[in-house]
């Protein structure tokens, strides 16, 4: 059981981006001295920011709950409080049982240690006892498919192997409460499928309480009967998954219409002036997406694009690992998909954009969207649409012939 009451978390914002969050002694002494003299200091000018405010909910034992929301809605902060990494500024949480959090797979892995050693180290960091790890060791290794490299230092692993082993350790935890953040976005498609299956087992079969944060609505719907939406640090939706997700998607579109830019304060990068256009070309329509990158990040940033239907079904995901496309702050990134009308059914689609550079910098859904116009695929007067007919407009050539026996 998890019971959160009027939970709040305040951060002090620093406007000078060159400064890290830690301070030098001199700054402290100076601000301390000027506080004595009653002069306003930069601390007072810095301003505060409530990452969470007045959050309350109750999650019963064995429930699997998805948590969704934009960048900066407070999801990560909530998870950090629940997993006791940071403490709340106001309110309280009561929870029963052992809590394990997977806020990022591979935390605590040491590159110089071997796969075997890292399984023990990481398992212990995540809260398993040595006996438990020993008992599950073979399962973990088998799941990760790294048997042959167990005694190789993990710095020599490919990134795929590394991620598989890291997730595998995490997937074999048996806490009463499991907190998961975006781990399903790792590895190749086959491994992702395997992870999903394992998550399903944990949720359904083993009856644990699971909190699952993801931008992947399909995965959320698959795993979690209940969904909580966070926005600007507060709970704005809580209930049956499909309904809450739909409501969230509406909100996403409305918000995109209102706000002109998306910015990650944590990673100091964002985009604005996001535009989508359908351009007549080659006797059909091409989709063109463009966005201006701004902020303080240095160097090339990998940009990924995902298209989903309005109910969150993924249609196409392509990241920079595949495309090798990079762009830098101060540039406009332009993506063109020729003859999109032949590829997708008419209807509304949402675009998710993400920036990566070693890690995920930002991920945003709904700032960009597009609507493919009505189309009469067979010239029969019947409208094809994504809601009823699915996203792929296959134009069947249907013929018939007599059967000669």
């Amino acid at each position, binding site marked *: 059981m998890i019971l959160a009451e009027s939970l709040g978390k305040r951060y002090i914002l620093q406007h000078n981006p060159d400064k890290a969050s830690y301070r030098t002694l001199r700054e402290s002494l100076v601000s301390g001295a000027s506080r004595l003299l009653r002069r306003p200091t930069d601390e007072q000018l810095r301003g505060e920011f409530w990452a969470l405010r007045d959050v309350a909910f109750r999650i019963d034992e064995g429930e699997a709950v998805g948590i969704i929301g934009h960048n900066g809605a407070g999801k990560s902060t909530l998870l950090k409080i629940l997993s006791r990494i940071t403490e*709340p500024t106001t309110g309280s949480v009561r929870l029963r049982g052992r809590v394990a959090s997977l806020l990022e797979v591979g935390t*605590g892995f040491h590159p110089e240690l071997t796969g075997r050693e890292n399984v023990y180290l990481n398992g212990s960091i995540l809260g398993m006892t040595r006996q438990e790890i020993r008992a599950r060791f073979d399962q973990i290794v088998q799941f990760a498919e790294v048997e042959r490299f167990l005694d190789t230092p993990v710095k020599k692993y490919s990134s795929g192997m590394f991620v598989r082993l890291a997730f595998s350790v995490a997937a074999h935890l048996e806490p009463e409460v499991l907190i998961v953040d975006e781990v399903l976005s790792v590895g190749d498609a086959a491994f992702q499928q395997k992870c999903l299956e394992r998550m399903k087992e944990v949720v359904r079969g083993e009856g644990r309480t699971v909190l699952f944060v993801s931008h992947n609505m399909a995965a959320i719907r698959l795993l979690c009967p209940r969904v909580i939406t966070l926005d600007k640090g507060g709970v704005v939706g809580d209930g049956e998954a499909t309904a809450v997700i739909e409501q969230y998607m509406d909100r996403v579109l409305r918000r995109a219409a209102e706000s002109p830019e998306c910015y990650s304060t944590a990673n100091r990068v964002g985009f604005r002036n996001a535009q989508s256009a359908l351009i007549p070309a080659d006797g059909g329509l091409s989709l063109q997406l463009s966005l201006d990158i701004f902020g303080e990040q240095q160097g090339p940033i990998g940009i990924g694009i995902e298209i989903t239907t309005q109910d969150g079904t993924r249609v196409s995901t392509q990241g920079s690992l595949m495309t090798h496309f990079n762009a830098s702050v101060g540039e406009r990134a332009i993506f063109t998909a020729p003859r999109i009308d032949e590829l997708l059914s008419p209807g509304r689609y949402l675009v998710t954009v993400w920036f990566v550079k070693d890690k995920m910098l930002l991920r945003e859904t709904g700032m960009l969207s597009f609507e493919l116009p009505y189309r009469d695929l067979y010239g029969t007067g019947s409208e094809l649409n994504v809601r009823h007919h699915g996203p792929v407009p296959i134009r069947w050539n249907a013929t018939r012939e007599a059967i000669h026996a």
Partner: protein
Amino acid sequence: MRKDGEILIRPGGTAERYWSEIWAYRELFAFFAWRDVTVRYKQTFLGICWALIQPIVTMVVFTLVFGRLAKMPAEGLPYPILVYAGVLPWQFFSTALSGCSGSLVSNANLLRKIYFPRLIIPVSSTVVALVDFAIAFVLLGVLMGWYGIMPGPEIVALPIFLLGAMLTSIAAGIWFAALNVKFRDFRFVVPFVIQLGVYLSPVGFPSSAIPDRYRFLYGMNPMVGVIDGFRWCLLGGKISVNWGAFGCSMLLVLILLALGIRHFRRVENSFADVV
């Protein structure tokens, strides 16, 4: 399985069950210590030899500078042995202190992502120093055999002084570790303290070189009692320990330790936000 039961998360609240929780995480403590020890000499060409090279070179240099040039008294002992018996606890103290002080920052990634009682990190990081100490200690045995010095029954008291050195490094170390998270200035303070400390402690000379009327005051430096104690235990009765001063300095260390833990507990919940 770790202890089940209800956890209450609220502002400023780890008060209850603080110590029993640390006890429950003892395996993680061992894993951290094991990790630090395993990783320490990986990818170094000379590997574990480093644990010997540093004290040997220090011994040679100090013997030349203090013994030959400055002609410090040797208490009737071969000067290299006198120095080495002082270098040993000093090296342990300085390795433990610098490891401990930097431990939270070098484990920042863990602090940001995973919960565990934070005190484990600085304390477990001193275990590495203990391993280095053990290796260097073997060499002392060889040296003593070479010079034909047999330790007396005083040697049974050695663990007391080792414990003293450990407590001193932890007491100072957890202050520095916690302060280092917020003020990176302490990255410069710690090497400076260690650099000066080697001259303020009787590492390269016996503490009998200090005029008698200052001996008690000098003994307020806890490493003075520790180093004198090491020499007394290992090299026989010619060296004396000022027990009164040693007791007082250990009392100061315990007070510093208690205050350090109190400070640590007050700030540990915000480590993840600042580090």
